């Protein structure tokens, strides 16, 4: 609707808004320490649970820590976790999925049996299990969530590869004399990009939410370091007293998800050769 009012094509509107949101997120994540008005760990018991005021623009939390500063530092943690986890899951998921889909036979059977066994557990449960192994640290979370979401990526990539490998241009590449690896890299993989992009942006959302769920269970980013997830989690007892403690990190998560999904849509359309003239 807004896009129509601005007379922008849907694609460009998505790309524009999504791009701005993601760019802002990245900027805050990188420049947060310099922008933040306070040290996010500094206690100020006088302004405990206070709402927005000139001293604390977005209020203060149960220990009187400045919410704005915590959100900025939290952006850094959350963005880092989400991006790294998506990169981790996509990277290994594509390798495994392409191998399974392209080589078929026993490779496929063994990989997929293992993969389907993992897929049977809810992602969060799996992540909890891995957390028990890796410990509650930032890298621990990345590996645990990455492994937990890996089976989904493998499934999607394998499906895309299976449908593309039957197309005749793949056979044409074989008749040309290209090796299987070149055929895979040049003709199969690039045509799987669209579903992978969609999955990656969707996963971004899942991971931010999973991270808050883990924090809620006390297995996320260990306090007192801020992340959007653990801010949400620790604010729960004060929900009626100081709703801004829940609303603000929640809003950050929603806006980020919206932006990432819009950008993902735009990227997917951009990568579709049919959308280019």
């Amino acid at each position, binding site marked *: 609707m807004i896009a129509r009012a601005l007379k922008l094509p849907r694609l460009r509107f998505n790309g524009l808004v999504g791009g701005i949101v993601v760019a802002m997120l990245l900027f805050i994540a990188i420049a947060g320490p310099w922008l933040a008005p306070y040290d996010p760990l500094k206690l100020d018991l006088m302004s405990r649970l206070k709402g927005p005021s000139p001293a604390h623009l977005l209020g203060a939390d149960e220990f009187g820590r400045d919410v704005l500063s915590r959100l900025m530092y939290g952006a850094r943690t959350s963005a880092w976790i989400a991006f790294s986890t998506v990169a981790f899951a996509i990277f290994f998921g594509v390798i495994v999925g392409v191998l399974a889909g392209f080589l078929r036979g026993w490779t496929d059977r063994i990989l997929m049996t293992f993969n389907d066994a993992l897929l049977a557990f809810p992602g969060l449960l799996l992540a909890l299990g891995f957390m028990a192994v890796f410990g509650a640290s930032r890298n621990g979370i990345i590996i645990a969530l990455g492994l937990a979401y890996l089976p989904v990526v493998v499934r999607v990539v394998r499906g895309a590869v299976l449908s593309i490998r039957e197309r005749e*241009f793949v*056979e044409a590449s*074989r008749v040309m004399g290209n090796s299987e690896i070149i055929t895979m890299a040049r003709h199969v993989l690039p045509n799987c990009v669209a579903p992978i992009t969609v999955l990656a942006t969707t996963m971004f959302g899942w991971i931010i939410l999973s991270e808050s769920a883990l924090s809620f269970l006390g297995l996320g980013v260990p306090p007192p370091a801020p992340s959007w997830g653990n801010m949400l989690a620790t604010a729960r007892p004060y929900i009626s007293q100081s709703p801004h403690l829940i609303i603000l990190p929640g809003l950050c998560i929603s806006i980020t998800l919206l932006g990432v999904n819009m950008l993902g849509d735009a990227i997917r359309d951009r990568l579709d050769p049919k959308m280019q*003239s």
Partner: protein
Amino acid sequence: MTPQSDVPSPILEVDDLSVQIGPAGNKVVDGLSFSIAPGDMLALVGESGSGKTMAARAVLGLLPPPLIVTPDSSIRFRDTELTRLPPAAMRKIRGARIGMVFQEPMVSLNPSMTVGDQMAEGLLLHQRLGKAEIRDRCLAMLERIRIHEPTKCLAAFPHEFSGGMRQRIMLASVMLLKPDLLIADEPTTALDTLVQRDVLDLMVELTTENQTSVLLISHDLGMVSHYVRNVVVMHKGVAVEQGESTQVLQGPKHEYTKRLVDALPRRSAGGARADRAGEPLIELRDIVIDYPGRDGLFKKTAGKRAVHGVDLTIGKGETLALVGASGSGKTTLGRAIVGLVQPTSGAITFRGQSLLDQGAAAQRREMQIIFQDPYSSLDPRQRVEDIVAEPLKLYPTMDRRQRAERVKEVFSEVGLGPEFARRLPHQLSGGQRQRVAIARAIVRRPAFVVADEPVSALDMTVQKQILKLIRSLQERHGFACLFVSHDLGAVEQVADRVAVMENGRIVEVGARDEVFDAPKHEYTKRLLDAAMLLDRKFAGVQAVKAKAVAV
């Protein structure tokens, strides 16, 4: 408009029908008028993009969204004006009184419903009948269309049937409602020659019995002239010519109709080129190809033997056509030669050297393949010049400049201007895509090319151009070609020799004229009989057979 069939009041009268893309858009159908008398057949003939399908859909009120019928168009069915009918009333007519058969039998039946349920669907919707009665009618209809074990068929799912069978079932379920008008949109285009004949014969039989009128939509003027008395030839949304099919075929008046008639398959002048089979390029000895069975979760599916011991020789520079119905193993055999399928046993030699050994890669590079479907044989993400240049990357002796030159040269050989170089496949038409596929196949100057149904996905006039192109390239570069096809018309135009394949065996091999004029094997005779080729004695003139087309 059609005075010869005006005697009884027409069942369908289309007057000045125009279909537009949106209220202000281009017209895809422009001022089309025709009428069909009760029990009569009329054909709309044209190539893809001519608007023939949209005209038919307009009759049913099934135009895809941006398209609309212009307000001054009129479609009268009996005494009802269809263009102004509310949707609910239209639904009562659709199916019950106007039936439709679609082109793709593979997708027009719901794969998750049994044949019985699908046949019953229309009856349930439009007639008040008991379960037993519906079942009886379905069974009677299946018996009528000569399907084995009709009771079993009712409980079977569509995937258990071949394309031809599905199309018969589709036809049966539409005719079950005894509609007044049947719209058949390219009902046999996706089918083999033999099956095509069966399905069309059945359609004529069923509609004649029920006094159903038929609006047949087709791109194949030759086929149409066998069955239909009146044709309307469409080109770019406009009816360029209409009249009796024999007259249109014999004396086309409009420029476009002339081109269309001209594109009908006809034997190339001067007969086959001199028999060059003297020097064999490729020899197949006793080739057997099995498809492995699958180890399912609960049962093992048995393997299937696709090719049973085939011997075949392809000479240098000759075109050998491999002809047969789908499932005869002809495509499998072609793929085995280029190495896409491994034969179970037997020997393939290329210039006397075995191709089945390790290290035949160098020989393989002298062979190429052109696929049937130009929409799936080009990588959608590659630009045309990259597609054509790719095979040269495996040519170590050429440097960058030589490659670029070769690509340019091949572009002009296949008749693509330099402006196509930077385009993506989806920006090209079917014929242009097939030219790119041909360019890719010949860019390494191969000694042998397999052409797997290279024209069957294309329009008639484009088919003709592509066949000409293949032939002229062959003359220039002297590569041998295995031309795999079920289309005898195309084969007649390009082949030097013809091999006929049935159920994995080659039943007849011979020079083209021998096979076409004096077929020895029973199967070849049937195939030729069904092919509805133009009568060869009078160039381009087809006498309408005595086939009873009821008036």
